[in-house]
């Protein structure tokens, strides 16, 4: 009996991966076939991008600020507080900015998408849409995927900038570091390869955030309780996938950077 249960569990998980992959492929294929829902895409860009801006700005400011507090303390011990800007900017641009912002957006967007599509699923609105001749993947999934993939890199750029500003404020008022020195070192520490790394990640994370939300939303079963379950699962799975994929993207980009001499 336990073997059968394990067998069923594995099959279920493999099927879920297969369905998730197929959903991703169908949403990407929809980009190249008509009809294209541009108005829905712009609406989603507003909801996902502009809607996430306040939380991203607020969180990034304080992350940058606290990073300066933590790192400056170490550099002061070695008598080189001026290096704070280098470390903070590299950490923000390469790693902390993309990951933390993606996790924040996952909490807001993956859950929002999963609950919205999940509610539509359990109230038969998705079936109604199909019955009325509209492909839900084209109408609901592709606009959300495109909007998130385009908006997350922009949010990351803004978040990185605001994070550096947060660091600037703390370095000036708390550590008494020269703001110009901090800003110049922060700016000069970033090389092209760092930018590539910092901007490659949000594209992949955007795909994860939106597709995971759509997948759990469209596979919701079991009424309002099911919607709650899907919403939670979407956030958890998206967050874990972001952290796991981050390792592989980092390794790949470092390899590419070394290869290209960036």
């Amino acid at each position, binding site marked *: 009996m336990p073997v059968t249960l394990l067998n069923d569990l594995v099959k279920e998980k493999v099927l879920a991966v297969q369905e998730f992959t197929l959903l991703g492929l169908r949403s990407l294929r929809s980009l190249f076939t*008509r*009809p294209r*829902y541009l108005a829905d895409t712009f609406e989603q860009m507003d909801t996902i991008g502009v809607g996430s801006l306040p939380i991203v700005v607020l969180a990034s400011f304080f992350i940058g600020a606290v990073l300066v507090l933590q790192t400056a303390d170490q550099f002061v011990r070695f008598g080189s507080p001026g290096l704070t800007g280098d470390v903070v900017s590299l950490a923000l641009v390469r790693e902390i900015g993309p990951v933390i912002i993606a996790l924040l957006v996952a909490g807001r967007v993956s859950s929002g998408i999963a609950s919205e599509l999940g509610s539509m699923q359990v*109230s*038969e*609105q998705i*079936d*109604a*849409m*199909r*019955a*009325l*001749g*509209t*492909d839900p993947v084209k109408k609901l999934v592709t606009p959300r995927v495109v909007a998130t993939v385009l908006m997350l890199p922009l949010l990351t750029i803004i978040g990185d900038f605001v994070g550096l500003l947060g660091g600037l404020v703390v370095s000036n008022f708390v550590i008494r570091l020269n703001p110009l020195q901090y800003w110049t070192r922060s700016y000069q520490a970033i090389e092209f390869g760092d930018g590539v790394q910092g901007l490659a990640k949000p594209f992949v994370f955007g795909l994860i955030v939106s597709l995971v939300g759509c997948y759990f939303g469209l596979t919701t079963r079991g009424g309002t309780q099911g919607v709650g379950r899907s919403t939670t699962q979407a956030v958890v799975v998206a967050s874990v996938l972001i952290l796991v994929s981050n390792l592989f993207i980092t390794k790949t980009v470092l390899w590419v950077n070394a290869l290209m001499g960036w």
Partner: protein
Amino acid sequence: MAEEVLRYDRVRLGFGEDEVLRDVSFTLHRGETVLLLGATGTGKTLLLKLALGLLKPDAGRIYVLGTDITELEEEELFPLREKLGIVFQEMALFDSLSVYENVAYRLIEETIHGGLDLAEEEIERRVREVLRFVGLEEAIWKLPADLSGGMKRRVGLARALITEPPVLLYDSPTAGLDPVTAQTILTLILRLRDTRQASALFVTHRLQDAFLLAGNTYDEDSGGLRPAGGNGVNVTGTRFLLLRDGQIYFEGQPQDLLTADDPYVRRFLA
């Protein structure tokens, strides 16, 4: 014999170990109304979803207007779905869209993305016309959340009717409604049947609804119902199917059902 509009040929469907439909075969002809009766959980709604291609059968074939839809891809099904209108049991109205947008949904989609070339005024005229048909023109700009259960059903009916499909699928359209509202919905369905000769597959577990549809016609003069008459002959083109344990247990005219001496049928009628 009239043209076939819908045919189920030895259809089987299950979920996991549980087989819900087992070898279901029947045909709906043009102008005919087939009433699908049966206890809850016997697979009546599944038959409607199968006709739309929203679900795929595990075995057997389904023909819609002569086309075998069993193996068709989602995109290939869209043109056929335009010829089918469905009223969902839970209404399935888009809750973030107004009544107007719900009813006009198909026309707007077809105008923006399809081959239709309708001006906004023309869409509104058609929406108002169909809302007038279901007696809800005054609710055109309301949201579904502001409507009662009966009003939502009528909006669902209007949405199904906007493109005047030749085949209509009703999934328990009177379930959970008070007798007066249920009568209003049934009168509209009879009006549709008798004035537009639409073919229909009507799922219900309410016997009174089934016999009302089978025994009455729409009276255009009074706007109400009148007994169909016919001295025992089925003049309304109505046929009954009784599902039991995923199979068709009884198939026949209304009077056959009433005179059947099968114990299960008698118990169902009681």
